[in-house]
């Protein structure tokens, strides 16, 4: 690795870790209701929202009611986004006169944005009107993230309360996440991004002349270029902060109007991990033992950093098949070297691998390079980071509650090994919690592997074109890499990530439906058992720390938890990975 690569990585982690405590503490105070009291101006605004909606903010609910409200709210959003897409042709703010979107694609996108996945079967600039992007997709970026954060806070209450019947008020947690955390951060980030050149306008696409007209395939001359515009920066800010990842333009943050400079890139990639990392501190603060939060953050970093370095080494080493053709791939002062297919010059290798690993460690899914063109092992890293269950940072809220489910399993296993009663933060872990935690861990694995198996048996390989009904292949690449494209798609949907090996033609009925169902299961069937654990733990008494208690903030426990996450991920997925990227790597180097 070059000296500059180490410096860019070090700077990234330094800034990220410096932000963890202040932001984490701020979020803890927000959820405790200790900031913005009812007399403050913002507090009045908050109270006004509750009055209008008929919510009593001081009334708390049990876990079942909390789950019903969360699911109901997400259903409303899903239906609204579906309707907006179907009817956008007849609605205002559509200067490009884009027609309504088809039913299967609309379903897929509505699920995708409600579930915080933001898988995109469509190309933004050629499909979605400004109204759909702004009032539909942008809003879901906020609300799906806020839902994840609300569920996390409810879960943490379950851990920290003593013999309680309630775990909080969903509407309050949702509103506070949105207006006190996501909205101010997004506003600042959006303006910073515009200053770098991200577009933010309601004008129609601009047409400019080109300097050197080129000949088209049919002999005509291309003398003009269309510059796509739109309210992009406001959406890009929240798509990064809320681990959403749905791009405004087709190539997401590789598009120069979505991510124009190294500085905009740094801010965006920082935003991917910012809230998930800071929530670890929030967790420690809310359970009144900050060491617990730092321990969880340490687990995430211990898994993340080696995988980042592995990805960087593989991409920087480049593609031996291209070297054989006379292509320079050695890094020097004047070029980044490495595997530059599908990467942008301004980011080179270092910023592409940092982004690829961060976006898949967190369930963000935005991209600034094309993962499909990564070297096999370079592409295996992002795929496996998702397959670990999106718990290494993971989605805002959802990553941490996923990791805490793993912590429950780790406590249980260590308890068995040393013959002690398993306890986490003073709460006894019993059969019910273990069943629910196992569901949280196993459901995504089941969805990913079953979905991939069904697709490669036939339905995911060929389709009839909608206009000509000509038979076409779904895969953009032959052999092992084609299998990787399918595996990546279900891995991404089944863990609510949203990034893709984008060569796969996924905007066809089979993938729209199959991936839509995968996203629904992976999001909501995990929220329910998570809240069930919360309800069950809240009702238990906190047992005092004794000689028999296994401490959960020590390096020993960190190692134990890392082991559980890595072993579950490896045992489940190595056979599938062997058929895709591992075979391909062997073919590339032979």
């Amino acid at each position, binding site marked *: 690795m070059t000296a*500059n690569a180490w*410096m860019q990585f070090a700077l990234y982690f330094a800034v990220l870790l410096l932000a963890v405590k202040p932001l984490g503490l701020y979020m803890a105070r927000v959820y405790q209701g200790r900031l913005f009291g009812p007399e403050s101006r913002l507090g009045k605004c908050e109270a006004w*929202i509750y009055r209008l*909606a008929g919510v009593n903010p001081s009334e708390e609910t049990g876990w079942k009611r909390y789950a019903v409200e969360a699911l*109901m709210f997400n259903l*409303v959003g899903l239906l609204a986004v579906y309707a907006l897409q179907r009817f956008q042709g007849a609605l205002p703010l559509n200067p490009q006169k884009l027609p309504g979107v088809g039913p299967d694609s609309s379903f897929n996108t509505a699920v995708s944005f409600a579930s915080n996945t933001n898988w995109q079967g469509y*190309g933004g600039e*050629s499909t979605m009107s400004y109204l759909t992007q702004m009032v*539909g997709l*942008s809003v879901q970026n906020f609300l799906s993230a806020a839902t994840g954060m609300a569920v996390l806070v409810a879960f943490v209450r379950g851990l920290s309360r003593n013999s309680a019947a309630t775990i909080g008020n969903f509407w309050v947690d*949702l509103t506070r996440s949105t207006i006190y955390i996501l909205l101010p951060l997004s506003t600042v980030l959006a*303006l910073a991004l*515009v*200053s770098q*050149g*991200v*577009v933010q306008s*309601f004008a129609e*696409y601009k047409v*400019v002349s*080109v*300097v*050197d007209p080129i000949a*088209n395939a049919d002999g005509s001359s291309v003398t003009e*270029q269309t510059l*796509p515009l739109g*309210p992009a*920066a*406001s959406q890009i800010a929240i798509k990064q902060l809320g681990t959403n990842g749905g791009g405004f333009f*087709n190539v997401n943050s*590789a*598009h*120069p109007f979505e991510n*124009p*400079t*190294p500085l905009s*890139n740094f801010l965006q990639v920082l935003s991917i991990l910012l809230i998930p990392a800071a929530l670890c501190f929030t967790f420690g603060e809310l359970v009144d033992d900050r060491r617990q939060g730092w321990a969880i953050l340490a687990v995430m970093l211990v898994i993340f950093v080696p995988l980042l370095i592995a990805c960087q080494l593989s991409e920087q080493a480049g593609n031996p098949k*291209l070297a054989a*053709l*006379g*292509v320079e791939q050695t890094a020097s002062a*004047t*070029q*980044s*070297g490495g*595997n*530059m*297919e*599908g*990467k942008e*010059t301004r980011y080179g290798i*270092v*910023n592409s691998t940092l982004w690829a690993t961060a976006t898949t460690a967190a369930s963000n899914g935005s*991209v600034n390079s094309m993962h*499909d063109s*990564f070297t*096999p092992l370079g592409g295996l890293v992002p795929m496996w980071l998702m397959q670990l269950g999106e718990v290494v940072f993971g989605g805002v809220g959802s990553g941490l509650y996923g990791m805490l489910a793993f912590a429950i399993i780790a406590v249980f296993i260590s308890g068995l090994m040393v013959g002690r009663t398993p306890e986490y933060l003073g709460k006894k872990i019993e059969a019910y919690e273990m069943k629910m935690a196992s569901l949280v861990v196993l459901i995504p694995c089941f969805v990913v592997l079953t979905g991939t198996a069904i697709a490669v048996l036939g339905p995911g390989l060929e389709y009839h074109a909608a206009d000509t009904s000509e038979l076409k292949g779904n895969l953009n690449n032959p052999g092992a890499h084609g299998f990787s494209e399918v595996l990546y798609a279900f891995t991404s949907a089944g863990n609510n990530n949203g990034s893709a*090996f984008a060569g796969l033609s996924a905007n066809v009925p089979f993938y729209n439906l199959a991936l839509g169902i995968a996203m629904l299961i992976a999001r909501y069937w995990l929220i329910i058992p998570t809240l069930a654990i919360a309800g069950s733990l809240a009702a238990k008494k906190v047992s005092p720390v004794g000689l028999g208690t296994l401490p959960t903030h020590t390096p020993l426990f960190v190692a134990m938890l890392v082991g559980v996450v890595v072993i579950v991920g490896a045992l489940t997925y190595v056979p599938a990975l062997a058929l895709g990227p591992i075979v*391909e790597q062997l073919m*590339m180097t032979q």
Partner: protein
Amino acid sequence: MTQCIRMGVIMYAILTLITGVLYPLVVTGVSQVLFHDQANGSVVMRGETAIGSSLIGQSFDDPRYFWGRPSATSPAYNGAGSSGSNLGPINPALLDAVAERVKTVRAAHPTQTGPVPGDLVTASASGLDPHISPAAAQYQIDRVANSRGLSKEQVTGLVAAHTESRTFGVLGEPRVNVLELNLALDAAQRP
């Protein structure tokens, strides 16, 4: 249950108003005032004509110009439809395309004998990459100078003037903006 649905719908409406209407409008308003050029696409003017955006690459194949990176969009550098090639590393389609590009680039640069800089023969992620590496620019200096009848020093000077180094000396990669460099070349030769 009906009460819960009612709360859900109203909450959704209020939060949509805040995050889907108020928020983008405020950001647009402030951006249009503070960062007018950037918010509208960083358009480059030549005289009265809008000749491109400094952030979006254009296709160049004339020997008098510096060439940018291969683009996977159709036609190349199609601003309305960004796309990468999404070809895997051992896909024969990729290897054939790169071999073809290496051949073209070598034929156009007889004075260069070393391997071809990678970014000059691989497709960018967006298909709209406005930059090439300084190595890729230096590779082309002889050709551009010859076809324009300019001295090598003059062209080298322009390339150096349009080479951006890493932000704060750390972030990103050194790069040359192809459109801006070519516009500068044209301007230098205008009588």
